[in-house]
């Protein structure tokens, strides 16, 4: 993929966005259907709900500050836990065929479990609250990281490891200097997938709690507040987009030496 594009050309490509917004606005206005409010109504409703605060607080009001940071915090906590756990277990089974044979059926099973079905179980174990949400997110998203880390650790150039051994690098040094860097591109691909899954599980887990963006969505649904439902969806979409872009930036920084195409 070529990265360098001229900014005006990039903006010109977005011509379809205002067109879609206009068609959406006109169509919903013509329909006058309560389930499909026009985007202008959604935006105004979103501002009233969350963005009436002072500019010093990025316009976020109390409702927003009582819900957004918590959601984001749990999402990132779950993601970091899943990232660390997935890399540790993944690299271990990628480097040890014996361990892989022992754990493979368990891991296959864990991956096949539909994460939302585990919610009642985690609710019973931890009751509602942060621990239950982080557990749900972590368990649901650890698999892509784990599988990619294992795959990356398995397919390391044997010559590199042999060379390192000849030069007398210890096991720990080989792990840090050869295994992890070689597996990094695959690990990052897994981490990216996990991040978008984390958002999904955050929403599901918050449906069953008392604060957070997911809870606000659920509350809007219960109150038949359709613009509120749409607003929460738009907000989550923007959050997903921002998280993905932030991740791509981070990945570019960390993997500068690696010229792989995604």
């Amino acid at each position, binding site marked *: 993929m070529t990265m360098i594009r001229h900014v005006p050309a990039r903006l010109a490509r977005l011509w379809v*966005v205002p067109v879609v917004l206009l068609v959406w606005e006109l169509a919903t206005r013509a329909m006058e259907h309560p389930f499909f409010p026009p985007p202008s109504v959604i935006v105004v409703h979103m501002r009233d709900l969350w963005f009436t605060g002072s500019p010093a607080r990025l316009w976020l009001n109390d409702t927003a500050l009582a819900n957004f940071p918590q959601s984001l915090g749990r999402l990132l906590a779950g993601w970091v836990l899943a990232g660390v756990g997935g890399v540790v277990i993944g690299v271990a089974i990628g480097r040890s065929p014996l361990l892989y044979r022992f754990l*493979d059926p368990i891991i296959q099973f864990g991956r*096949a479990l539909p994460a939302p079905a585990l919610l009642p179980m985690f609710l019973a174990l931890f009751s509602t609250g942060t621990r239950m949400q982080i557990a749900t997110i972590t368990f649901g998203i650890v698999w892509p990281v784990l599988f990619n880390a294992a795959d990356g650790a398995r397919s390391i150039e044997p010559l590199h490891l042999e060379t390192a051994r000849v030069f007398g690098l210890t096991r720990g040094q080989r792990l840090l200097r050869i295994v992890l860097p070689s597996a990094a591109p695959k690990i990052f691909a897994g981490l990216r997938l996990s991040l978008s899954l984390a958002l999904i599980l955050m929403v599901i887990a918050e449906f069953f709690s008392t604060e957070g963006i997911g809870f606000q969505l659920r509350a809007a649904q219960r109150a038949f507040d359709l613009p509120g439902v749409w607003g929460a969806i738009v907000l989550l*979409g923007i959050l997903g987009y921002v998280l993905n872009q932030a991740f791509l930036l981070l990945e570019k920084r960390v993997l500068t030496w690696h010229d792989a195409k995604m």
Partner: protein
Amino acid sequence: MIPRLFSRPFDSALFCGFLGVAGLLLLAEAAGRLGLVSTVQFPLASTVLVTAAGLAADQEFLVDVGATFAAWALGLSLTVAFAVPAGLLLGSVPAVERALRPVIEFLRPIPSVALIPLAAFVFTERLDMKIAMIMYASTWPILINTMYGLREVDPLAKETLRAFGFGRTAVLLRVSLPSTAPFIATGVRVAATIALILAISTELLAGGSDGIGAFIILAGSSPDGLTLTVAATVWAGLLGIATNGAFVRVERRLFHWHPGTAT
């Protein structure tokens, strides 16, 4: 003399895997029996297994499993019927791809489950709703993989056919589609997992009367609810493994000539 079969048991994936599973179950059982985990909070492994075995003969549960898989199969087929042609169009006509890319990039990050509350208003029939949710979430992997696969088609093969006077459609059907097929298959396999997750999530979150998700919700209110829930979840996992395994197998058989096929 020890028979050869047992000479190096740790080389056998089956033996090791069995030991691993048995070990985990024993650990869970021991944790419960020794009081490390309260059995009120989490049922014993043996209780779960017995309940799970009982579920296999439970008429009600089987009907629910059937309902979930019917929605899953229907939703997945419709997704394939929609996403593969869409991916072929986007992948082979750059103008369309350029125009729709921003829209796709804004739609894709919307977490699928966030749409369930909206879908609960829009759809009156539970089956329609499950299928709509499945289609939204599992379109992406198929669409993206199809587009990606088209980019990897050997240009020489396309040029050759064109030189012999074949039109665009003929090139698409004779070269592009067959060489994209393994990528599409991988997309469908990923989509199949997502579709199952969405089917169960929709049942869990939007209520309704049938499906594994509805069974889990209903079980939650009975006295030994947690045991039933965990047992149903075990089945959900096993069924997930079975479907994924079936897809991998079909992929290997159909595309054994393709280097990057199924791991």
